[in-house]
């Protein structure tokens, strides 16, 4: 009888120990899950969380169009580097995409290549204001900028980003999927003749699906 009691007590203790172990392990795991995490991502690595536009798409658009512009015949045939002014990229999508981010990156890569010269359109008003200040008598004459020496652009760089979104028609299903097609057109217009002397496009199509039923 005593032996049986001891065995039962031991079993009880063992169950209690196991329970404690499981509770502690569970709590530790829950705490780990609650911890905030941070990690650095490679900006060039392709990552998509849904079908919509993201930074990987921007990178792809910038790379393709910059390469195409660098392969264009502008710099190799001309005696001097073409002077370009950017007139922006129209956003004709259903997302609030900052298209100036695309044009800024293309400009950066082209400037780095040394094949193109760019006129800063965004700073025109500030340049004029600063020049007015210099000629208002506050700045010594020998330190003033020379007026009438600004560059005249040879080309306008402009473009349009468009998207077409299609959802799966209504039917009995467990997932709903959507397809998004992005097209980014960029073109170079000769300011003297009005001729489009270069144009290229990047197309991205992506399908994403998500469950219709969830918690």
């Amino acid at each position, binding site marked *: 009888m005593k032996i049986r009691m001891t065995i039962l007590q031991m079993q009880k203790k063992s169950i209690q120990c196991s329970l404690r172990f499981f509770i502690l392990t569970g709590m530790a795991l829950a705490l780990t899950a609650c911890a905030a995490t941070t990690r650095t991502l490679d900006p060039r690595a392709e990552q998509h969380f849904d079908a919509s536009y993201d930074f990987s798409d921007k990178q792809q658009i910038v790379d393709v169009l910059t390469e195409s512009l660098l392969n264009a015949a502008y710099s190799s045939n001309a005696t001097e580097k073409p002077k370009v002014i950017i007139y922006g990229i129209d*956003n*004709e*999508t*259903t997302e609030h995409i900052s298209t100036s981010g695309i044009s800024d990156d293309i400009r950066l890569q082209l400037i780095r290549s040394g094949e193109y010269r760019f006129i800063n359109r965004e700073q025109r008003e500030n340049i004029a204001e600063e020049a007015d200040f210099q000629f208002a008598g506050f700045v010594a004459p020998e330190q003033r900028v020379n007026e009438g020496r600004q560059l005249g652009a040879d080309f306008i760089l402009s473009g349009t980003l468009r998207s077409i*979104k299609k959802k799966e028609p209504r039917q009995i299903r467990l997932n709903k999927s959507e397809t998004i097609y992005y097209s980014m057109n960029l073109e170079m217009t000769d300011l003297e003749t009005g001729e489009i002397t270069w144009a290229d496009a990047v197309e991205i199509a992506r399908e994403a699906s*998500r469950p219709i039923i*969830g*918690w």
Partner: protein
Amino acid sequence: MRFQRPGRLCALVTVCGLALQACSTPGVLVTAREQFKQGSTTAAVQTLSGAEVSARDQLLLLMDTALVAQAAEQYNESIVAFEQAYTLIDELDFISVRDQSTALFLNDWAIRYGGEISERLWIHTFQMINYLMLNRPDGAAVEARRAVNLFDKHGDVLNEDVLTRYLMALSFESAGQFDSANVEYRKLNEQLGIDPPARRSKATRDLVVLVASGFIEPKLAGDLILDINARISFPFYPESYKREPGITVFANAQVLDTQLVHTRLLPIARSALAKRGKSVAARHALRLVAKNQIANQLEDQDALVGGIARLLFLVLEQADTRSWETLPAWLSLVRAEVPTGIDSVNVQINSADALSVTDHSRTIVLNSKPGSLTVDMIRLGVGRFDQQVVSP
């Protein structure tokens, strides 16, 4: 059994009490809405900033915050809140097992509010206004394209919204997307006989004034009690007889030729609610069956507990009357071509309903650049105007 009954009853009453407590609009929203309607827009902004509500009412909080911010001329803040509302609607676009199962035993208040179709459209309407007010036509065009998607999907309900369609055309036009603008102007002409604006010379300037007047009627609860086991409680919009405002634009004491577009929001909201009616009715039927089964089972074990449960279930049946109550009753748009040499115009508005007449006047200074567009917005009925006279 003697020991089980009080416990069971207590649990049942507690659950039902908690559920009933959840069947109302959060206090913070009620306060802010009242402040806004009484004309204390700044107080309403303060009440809503940093306010917290349960996940069920998150969308209502965002929509109210955005609209009140717009009335307070905080357009950037309004844009942020509306964009969050748009994202939330997209996130809620699935069948939630948790929401549906809770609603099956309690009522539709347990479901996270996803907005009526009409409210989803008006998020884009007010976003277009925000972007136009900030002179960011590209942003307005994005919202217009989002609205196109909704019109394509729910045209049967939304086609009556002339103003949103006109605003879409205007947004495309302002962003220089003339093909898209022409499509919308053509639809306005084909469906509603509204002429597209005449081709303007580059020297003239355009004026667009948006007027939001009054407040949309809130949803009410209707009740149908068939017997002790079957109470049907349903939301509905009551009738309203508010007239559209009269708007006149004066330049140098002369009346300018204008194009006037009005949308009454109530009939569209009512159509949207009716379209959702089938799913509400189906959930209702399932809930009746489920509650009846539970009450029967409890009655088999204990007649008193079963009877009380039946009564509590009857009380729990509450119509989900949540809606975006800061919306105006009417949205109007007046467009005028302003000849060169005129620096400012005066807009006179006469808004009347069954109880009062509101006369409002505002002087608008025009953009002097030839070919430019000046956009202004006037919110009537919230008490922050330049020269407002209210007469009974």
